[in-house]
């Protein structure tokens, strides 16, 4: 069984080595939004116009995110002579130049087989010819030595820019499913849990619970039926790590889920993906289908007696369904509302059975840990937070995109080295982590190491990985209101502090921002924030006031100014 898969991978590797020129075009959501669909079309048609068959001398590969989304659409070219170029902002004009520069000009182009009346291709051909003389492309080369890339440590994102997400052979060629084979052949479930525990991997969804411990709870339950669930319901504004991981390496998520299934004794798994991620859904679907065909999924996983059947459930658009108990209810076909814990899902989860729920990024880390060992993983990061964390770096920065950094890196390194600092004359003001559940970290705390505990001390959280950089042109009360708006919209309505409290917080913020506030309103705001934080039922409500509380902590004067303006403007001309 394994031999067959190995052969498949090797065959793919050999085939790739034969290809003269491989052009990788990013088709993740971010690059598609900046026009990579058109770029891809030109590239594919261009190859056709030049009469290269796809698997012959040149190959266009659709790939997932390469990280530097601010420079999208990204195109990478790899030729047989080992030269490797990454280009940014490739529109259809520049795509022609890429074709002109990199397509091998050999005799193939002289024996045209396309129909002579195909005017479009003829036109394209002459366009490519004309593009030979143009020089725009040199300015679009992105150096791999860019601090954006060189300061990252990539574990989850290691194959970005190389892997065809829709090809199982390609995944196999990149050591795919080797970790799964290893655990099935050489490890007992207990050893797998232990390995993950030793690695120090903690939940990447935000709460940071030790993954190995979670698996152990479910493994120890003496029940026949158990479930594993991949929580792919990422929804923080500005965060798109999980989407990207699913889009660029769906098999890796699947492999992680299967290892979790083996370790806990679950033979069914669910991937709960939000409906807003159609590309991720399609790619995961295809991955499941391909893996099933090759005997990786099903009644006998890789020829062993381990049974595993994953299925996809699509979320209906509620943020709160990322909360594990709400997610479980949603899979069960009920309204996605959180319930009180305990019992935790590891004792009583989906349909009352022990259930492990892991975030996409957590699962994507698992195959690497199994392959390279817990000690290797634990050597990265800090004492309490091991490994790397993927962040969606957005906001007022020169370089924005998806980054993977070791735990313990300082915010300063992320902002100034990887992100390239705040563009223009504006100054860095704050970094917002953890989305609507997180808080703002001011410039004075830029040297804080990024790990679970340090961020919590500052009143923020690690969260799932949204990292928004704010410059000094942004008003903090307004920024806090943006997140409060989000929480008001996304509260499920079950418990009163979250349902009514968030509306009251927003009303107070509205009042202050409109300049009608009194100084007492700030205390009132603080009081109700604490009330909502301390009495809400689930994580959404408990963390909803964080953006307000953290901005009150570090930027209180901005709130006070709002009141002062009102008093000042009471007189003539202020």
């Amino acid at each position, binding site marked *: 069984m394994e031999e067959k898969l190995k052969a498949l991978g090797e065959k793919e590797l050999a085939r790739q080595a034969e290809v003269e020129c491989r052009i990788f075009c990013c088709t993740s959501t971010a690059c598609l939004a900046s026009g990579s669909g058109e770029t891809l079309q030109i590239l594919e048609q261009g190859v056709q116009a030049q009469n290269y068959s796809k698997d012959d001398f040149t190959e266009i590969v659709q790939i997932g995110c390469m990280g530097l989304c601010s420079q999208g659409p990204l195109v990478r070219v790899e030729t047989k002579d080992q030269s490797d170029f990454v280009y940014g902002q490739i529109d259809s004009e520049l795509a022609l130049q890429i074709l002109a520069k990199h397509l091998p000009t050999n005799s193939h182009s002289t024996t045209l087989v396309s129909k002579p009346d195909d005017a479009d291709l003829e036109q394209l051909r002459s366009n490519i010819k004309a593009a030979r003389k143009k020089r725009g492309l040199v300015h679009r080369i992105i150096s791999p030595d860019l601090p954006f890339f060189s300061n990252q440590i990539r574990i989850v994102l290691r194959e970005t820019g190389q892997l065809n997400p829709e090809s199982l052979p390609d995944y196999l060629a990149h050591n795919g499913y080797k970790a799964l084979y290893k655990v099935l052949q050489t490890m007992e479930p207990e050893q797998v849990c232990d390995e993950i525990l030793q690695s120090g991997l903690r939940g990447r969804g935000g709460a940071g619970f030790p993954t190995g411990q979670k698996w152990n709870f479910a493994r120890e339950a003496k029940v026949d039926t158990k479930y594993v669930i991949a929580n792919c319901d990422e929804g923080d504004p500005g965060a798109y790590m999980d989407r990207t991981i699913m889009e660029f390496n769906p098999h890796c998520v699947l492999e992680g889920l299967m290892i979790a299934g083996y370790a806990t004794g679950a033979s069914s798994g669910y991937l709960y993906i939000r409906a807003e991620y159609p590309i991720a859904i399609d790619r995961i679907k295809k991955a499941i289908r391909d893996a099933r065909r090759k005997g990786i999924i099903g009644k006998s996983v890789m020829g062993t007696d381990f049974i595993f059947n994953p299925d996809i459930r699509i979320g209906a658009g509620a943020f709160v369904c990322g909360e594990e108990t709400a997610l479980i209810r949603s899979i069960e076909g009920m309204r996605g509302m959180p319930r*009180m814990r305990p019992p935790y899902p590891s004792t009583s989860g989906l349909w009352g059975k022990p259930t492990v729920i892991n975030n996409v990024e957590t699962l994507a880390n698992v195959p690497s840990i199994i392959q390279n060992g817990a000690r290797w993983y634990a050597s990265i990061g800090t004492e309490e937070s091991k490994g790397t964390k993927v962040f969606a770096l957005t906001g007022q920065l020169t370089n924005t995109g998806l980054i993977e950094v070791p735990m313990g890196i300082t915010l300063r390194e992320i902002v100034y080295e990887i992100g390239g600092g705040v563009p223009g004359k504006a100054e860095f003001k704050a970094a917002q982590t953890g989305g609507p559940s997180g808080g703002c970290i001011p410039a004075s705390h830029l040297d804080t190491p990024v790990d679970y505990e340090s961020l919590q001390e500052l009143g923020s959280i690690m969260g799932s990985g949204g990292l928004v950089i704010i410059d000094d042109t942004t008003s903090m009360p307004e920024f806090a209101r943006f997140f409060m708006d989000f929480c008001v919209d*996304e509260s499920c309505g079950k418990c009163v502090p979250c349902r009514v409290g968030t509306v009251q917080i927003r009303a107070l913020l509205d009042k202050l921002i409109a300049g009608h506030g009194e100084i007492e309103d700030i205390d009132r705001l603080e009081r109700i924030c604490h009330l909502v934080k301390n009495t809400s039922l689930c994580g959404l409500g408990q963390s909803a006031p964080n953006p307000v509380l953290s901005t009150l902590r570090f930027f209180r004067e901005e709130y006070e100014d709002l009141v002062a303006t009102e008093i000042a403007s009471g007189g003539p001309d202020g």
Partner: protein
Amino acid sequence: MGDMEVGMITLTIDGKTVRVPSGTSLLDAALSHEIDIPRLCFHPELSVSGGCRMCVVEVEGKEQPTVSCGLECQEGMVTNTNSEQLTKMRKDIIDLFVSDHPLDCVTCDKAGSCLLQKYAYEYGVKETSFTEIISRSLLQDDNPFFIRDHKYCILCGRCVRVCDEIVGAHAIDFAKRGFEANIATPFDGPMIDSSCVFCGNCVQVCPTAALMPVSRINRGREWELERISTVCGYCGVGCQIEYAVKDDEILYARSAGDPSVNGDFLCTKGRYGWDFVRNDDRLTQPLIRRDLAHELGITDEPWEAPTTSPLAVRRPKVDDYFVPVSWETAIDIVCTRFAEVVENHGPDAIMGLASARCTNEENYLFQKFFRAGIGTNNVDHCARL
């Protein structure tokens, strides 16, 4: 450590040592030991929701207060249900509730039996200290049994749970989300088009005026109503019913809450099928036919039964055919006639047909009377369900 009963645990609530079966929630443990904890969404017969956050308690060793309805008692747990911190917290929660709830208690029909009003009174919340923002204003009166006045709804979800867990109809659930969340039928269609069976159990468990019996609206304050307890006569289960009566008129019926019989629940007939009480056609005393009355000398006028069947007459008047008599007279006649029939034709000439609406005891007596009294086994029963 005392007796080691299997499955029992000992804990301390407000300094009082209590023993409860393991798996008991702290709220249940407290309530069963006469320690009252404020609660709105909790109902003893329903699953735990934990949405109202009123039942917060302090647990030693835990940093934050936690809700007691979802907290499982642990051996040696030391808890506190009343403190300055908890009072403040509950007060703030009530404050939030009333910021989204009209404070028109002076004209509200629920006043006096409204749980939110009760707690607002107990915690001294006169008005909200926040901004009053009422999330919903819809009033739905699409059926003859109850109204749904959404502005009073506090989204405790009791109605949803009773409909799902006790009745099994699942006619209503939460719709929309957050501040706009409301309780609705599928696609917010009329109640009659839903799977609702109009048992009204949702109305009974509703803590506020969001669900009210139509028959009760604008008919008096809760404290003016006389409560009359009785046993429902519709079937043999013997549900405990309490009628709320004012000026000899029934305003509504509700379960009297005997947990050993029907708890807080009733069926459609028990809850809404009492309007016959005041019906003009209702028989309230024994009647005998006019020809028999003349024969016995009760009336002077002779009377002959008409040849046409009374069934053929549209709305026959009772007085045209019958004369009211006392119970003594009526029973006397029945006894005499039964004795005559038995003597002349034997006991098997008589047959008894009992009703499903009688209780077991009544039906037992009925067959006993026929078997031992009359001497026949000709006893049957109308129910063929």
